[in-house]
């Protein structure tokens, strides 16, 4: 007996799917912004903080990078209440994503800081550039150019990783999918449509990030 595809049963729930996708985008966007604040502070701490702070930051980075994100979510959502901190599933999901992306972000930002050599700043000074010009053209723009690819792919990884937050029913796209398939029993159709939605979002961001790079971050050619 051939399998009968019933995609109509999935599209009947499109408002829920759309809300889930929007939730995924908001969750990822917020986590990225807050995570980058953590990353910048962490990178400053690692490059110019006291010894003990550098040690703590190293431990943070290694622990996060070498344990699964799912366990990190469980620790925050189920483990923290034991220490008296009770979070809603949405807050726990956001916190877990921030803690996770922060650890990866520190290394990215640090690479950006280290990509600027002293000689370039001195060259700028000897060309008679004002301090603000030096900051803008010699420090800021080249360091953003250097880290832009890793930063944008980190964001897409974060967005895809946020699907794991469905494990604590955080209400994003994957959780919405789980809800729907528990009602219409169309598991394959639901997950296929949702996978396509994630892919569409990835393609959209790949395109948008590439367009931004072409428009503002093109490196001067060496001809």
């Amino acid at each position, binding site marked *: *007996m051939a*399998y009968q595809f019933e995609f109509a049963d999935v599209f009947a729930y499109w408002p829920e799917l759309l809300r889930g996708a929007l939730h995924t985008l908001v969750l990822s966007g917020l986590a990225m912004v807050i995570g980058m604040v953590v990353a910048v502070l962490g990178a400053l701490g690692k490059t110019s903080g006291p010894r003990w702070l550098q040690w703590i930051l190293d431990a943070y980075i*290694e*622990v996060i*990078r*070498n*344990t*699964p*994100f*799912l*366990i*990190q979510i*469980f*620790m925050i959502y*189920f*483990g*923290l*209440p*034991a*220490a008296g901190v009770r979070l809603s599933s949405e807050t726990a999901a956001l916190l877990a994503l921030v803690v996770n992306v922060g650890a990866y972000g520190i290394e990215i930002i640090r690479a950006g800081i280290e990509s600027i050599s002293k000689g370039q700043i001195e060259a700028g000074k000897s060309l008679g550039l004002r301090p603000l010009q030096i900051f803008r053209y010699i420090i800021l723009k080249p360091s953003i150019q250097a880290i832009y690819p890793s930063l944008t792919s980190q964001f*897409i990884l974060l967005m*895809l*990783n946020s*699907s*794991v937050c*469905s*494990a604590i029913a955080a209400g994003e796209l*994957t959780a919405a999918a789980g809800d729907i398939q528990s009602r219409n029993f169309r*598991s*394959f159709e639901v*997950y*296929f449509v*949702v*996978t396509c939605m*994630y*892919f569409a979002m*990835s*393609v959209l961001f*790949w395109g948008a990030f590439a367009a931004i790079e072409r428009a503002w971050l093109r490196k001067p050619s060496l001809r």
Partner: protein
Amino acid sequence: MRVLSEGDILFIIMAVRWTLLLSIVAFIGGGIGGLIVALARTSEFKWLRWLALSYIKVFQGTPLLMQLFLAFFVPGIFGIDVDPWGAAAVGLSLHASAFLGEIWRGSIEVVPRGQSEAAYSLGLTYVPRMFLIIIPQAIRIAIPPTIGFLVQLIKGTSLASIIGFVEITRAAQIINNATFRPFTIFALVALVYFLICWPLSAYSKVMERKLTVASR
């Protein structure tokens, strides 16, 4: 609710063998698939390159969790019964094929063109040229990022718990549901993952540093 016993802890720790077995199977499966993807990505035929690129993009642009769900539900369409173990092994292998394929494509392309041209002019055909000249040189460059991805893969096996495969994460959830000691249990599991992944990460970092020094 009952008290967390030594037996429970042993049950969780012993479940790590399923995590390791799944990681090994997926790494071998992904290694074979990844080699095919990498060769297709560097082939002379445009359509084959395009096909491999599409495969990579699909897996890089969708969540691993969705890939596992589909690996679990797609066989049902064809009337094939699949258990969580089979679905997780196949899903993670396909996932690893895409990522290893992209890593190895990069390593193959780093080998200087002259090597390939020299092999041509010696009259070597594709198979000996690739497997005797190019790939042996590419392996050295490929080792650090490959081990880095292995760490990602080991961590990724924790998602198999969501489709119901009882590896260490699922075992921990089962024990937690009975004893409700989440902090202790998940910290223990995190420690086990850390003890597996951290040495690999450290090794990958050391190898990478050696390579940069050697290429200077």
